[in-house]
């Protein structure tokens, strides 16, 4: 099998898999315990449930030194030290001891004005980073007055049409007063970047004095999440334009966060989803290197967004395995040498299996999900609100989410020792197994032709549907217990307050958009839009022209129209 890391170099890992080595005394003792003591307790009854994880790995009753021995565990090669290659134990040396993970909030609804009050409230109670949830029209490149935006303005996020909306949204919140500001902006990456760059200018804060974080990962939208606008190749190109603009101007920003999250949530399973996300990351990296950039400049600008919400221990293993794979890929495939290029920073969003039934229980689920990420060494941590499965979260549930993060960061001594699960027979075994799954899956994707083939061939979609069906069956059959859903079942309850948009916010939004259109310098806007089109046609970085357009108060929809006319639109698949 092709190894995505090192081609033919089988090395010690291969040898380690050799099952023929003589069993040590622990292995023999374990075998004895298993048959004579453990199995005996099951005589006449069956196990509580199948001990199979969502990624398909079976959980053994007990892990011992024999498991590490069998895997040829080598401390220096497999783990090393935090902040040092291969970064299994953490991306920074001091990890949470110098500074806990960044306590982050993802929020947005209505228009800039009403959402601004929510942001101030979040900062007051201790949010250190705010990621703006945009409404669907903004994410899909439609202005609030577009017929496609009907019924969706300000619904699942805040409506942003022009820079004026950003000014309202961050009124009284200097962008340098928080650790990072940002948004997802997956299909509008250069516009989202330009909106934040121009916002800093408006507020008189130098680009060097604040940090912008974007998701800006369009490729996953085609198989999960669904905000795609253009065909995949030009969409990826525009995303890379936003990243490479930062190399010279703002190398401390994080303009791309490649997502496992939505691909796993959509059914792929965390290992396959991690492989797809890695193949997306490699696609972006290859494009940027082909454009003449250096890996040591590019890689530090890319973060990842891992996800595993079904199995606590797999989640810890996934983060550790992902950091190790990233470090080895960057060094062995690309020859990266800077620590910032080799060490992967991760953003996570704490989930459990949230239910519509008795939503308060989701507080417990998301806390456990988040705890796993923290034990895995995540860098930036968000937490889903308990009512998020049913509506745009309210003030109370956002407070509980932030307080949960603060409790994990500050109480129980959870964040005191670095990589506290390191060396656990269970966790090290799972880390190796998950790593193997991810690498095998990545090799399969690369044989298929890489990231674009995952979309074009329907591979990603099929994988996800099959996984989602498998999950649904496991729930329907009770094989995967879910409290209040298939165990102690209750009726689902979606409160009447869910989705009650603010009609006044929609009116305000439309008024602001009309006022901007009436007051701005139309010629300046038209010239800037023409410049974007030329950059698109000539294959130059569009970000400088987009920034000019944004400064001139061109709207998101107007800029996306240029892109649509130039690159065409993507037709979503009707396969299922």
């Amino acid at each position, binding site marked *: 099998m092709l190894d995505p890391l090192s081609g033919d170099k089988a090395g010690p890992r291969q040898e380690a898999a050799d099952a023929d080595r003589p069993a040590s005394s622990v292995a023999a003792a374990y075998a004895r315990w298993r048959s004579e003591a453990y199995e005996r307790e099951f005589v006449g009854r069956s196990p509580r449930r199948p001990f199979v994880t969502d990624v398909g790995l079976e959980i053994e009753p007990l892990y011992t030194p024999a498991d590490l021995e069998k895997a040829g565990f080598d401390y220096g090669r497999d783990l090393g030290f935090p902040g040092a290659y291969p970064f299994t134990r953490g991306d920074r040396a001091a990890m949470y001891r110098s500074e806990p993970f960044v306590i982050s909030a993802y929020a947005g609804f209505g228009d800039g004005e009403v959402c601004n009050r929510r942001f101030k409230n979040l900062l007051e109670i201790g949010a250190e980073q705010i990621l703006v949830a945009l409404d*669907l*029209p903004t*994410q*899909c490149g*439609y202005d609030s007055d577009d017929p*496609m*935006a*009907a*019924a*969706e303005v300000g*619904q*699942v996020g805040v409506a942003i049409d022009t820079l004026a909306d950003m000014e309202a949204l961050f009124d009284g919140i200097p962008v340098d007063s928080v650790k990072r500001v940002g948004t997802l902006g997956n299909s509008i990456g250069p516009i989202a970047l330009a909106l934040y760059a121009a916002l800093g200018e408006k507020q008189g804060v130098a680009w060097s004095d604040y940090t912008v974080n974007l998701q800006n990962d369009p490729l996953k*939208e085609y198989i*999960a*999440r*669904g*905000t*795609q606008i253009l065909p995949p190749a030009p969409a990826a190109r525009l995303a890379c334009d936003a990243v490479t603009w930062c190399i010279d101007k703002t190398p401390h920003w994080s303009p791309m966060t490649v997502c496992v999250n939505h691909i796993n*949530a*959509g*059914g792929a399973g965390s290992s396959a989803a991690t492989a797809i996300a890695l193949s997306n990351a490699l696609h972006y990296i290859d494009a940027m290197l082909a454009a003449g950039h250096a890996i040591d400049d590019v890689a530090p600008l890319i973060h990842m967004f891992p996800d595993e919400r079904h199995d606590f221990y797999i989640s810890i293993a996934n983060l550790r395995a992902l950091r190790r794979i990233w470090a080895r890929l960057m060094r062995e495939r690309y020859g990266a040498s800077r620590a910032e290029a080799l060490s992967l920073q991760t953003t996570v969003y704490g989930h459990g299996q949230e*239910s*519509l*039934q008795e939503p308060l229980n989701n507080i417990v689920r998301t806390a456990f999900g988040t705890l796993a990420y923290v034990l895995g060494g995540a860098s930036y941590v968000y937490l889903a609100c308990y009512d998020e*499965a*049913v*509506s*745009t979260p309210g003030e109370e549930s956002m407070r509980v989410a932030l307080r949960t993060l603060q409790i994990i960061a500050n109480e129980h001594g959870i964040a005191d020792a670095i990589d506290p699960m390191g060396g656990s027979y269970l966790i090290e075994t799972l880390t190796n197994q998950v790593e193997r799954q991810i690498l095998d899956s990545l090799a399969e994707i690369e044989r298929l032709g890489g990231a674009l083939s995952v979309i074009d061939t329907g591979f990603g979609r099929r994988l*996800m*549907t099959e996984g*989602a*069906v498998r999950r*649904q069956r496991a*729930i*329907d059959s009770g094989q995967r217990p879910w409290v209040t*859903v298939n165990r102690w079942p209750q009726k*689902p*309850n*979606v*409160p*009447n*307050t*869910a*989705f009650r*948009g603010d009609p006044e916010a929609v009116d305000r939004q439309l008024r602001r958009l009309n006022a901007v259109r009436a007051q701005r310098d139309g010629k300046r806007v038209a010239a800037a839009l023409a410049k974007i089109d030329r950059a698109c046609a000539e294959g130059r970085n569009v970000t400088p022209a987009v920034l000019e357009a944004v400064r001139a108060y061109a709207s998101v929809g107007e800029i996306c129209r240029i892109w649509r006319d130039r690159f065409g639109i993507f*037709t*979503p*698949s*009707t*396969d*299922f």
Partner: protein
Amino acid sequence: MTGRRLRILIAKVGLDGHDVGARVVARGLLDAGMEVIYTGLRRTPEQIVRAAIEEDVDWIGISLLSGAHRVLVPRIRELLDESDAGDIGILVGGIIPQEDVAELESAGVARVFLSGTSISEIVAFLQTQSADLKNA
């Protein structure tokens, strides 16, 4: 409706891009022996109604998680009725507040299934409904 398999159009309306639930239901109904067509993402009410009529379906299953159901679902019902296709039934699946479930069901939606509903429940509903129609 007698003598043929049930035909269902699973539809995503508006900008909501989350279609895993829609696809899982589509697959489940197919496995249960029904004929299933999926619209793909981001369809307008007009496109959905046109597809439903062209495909001669018995039911449209609309999946919505973005909160736009109060506008978009009644619009589809209205267009169907205007197009002389009032016999096509509508099911809605997704995250729908209690109050809106009643509202939708009185606006011509046969049934709202909240996310977390088992596939067999949906299959059973469709089979009972069509049996009722056959016996009517």
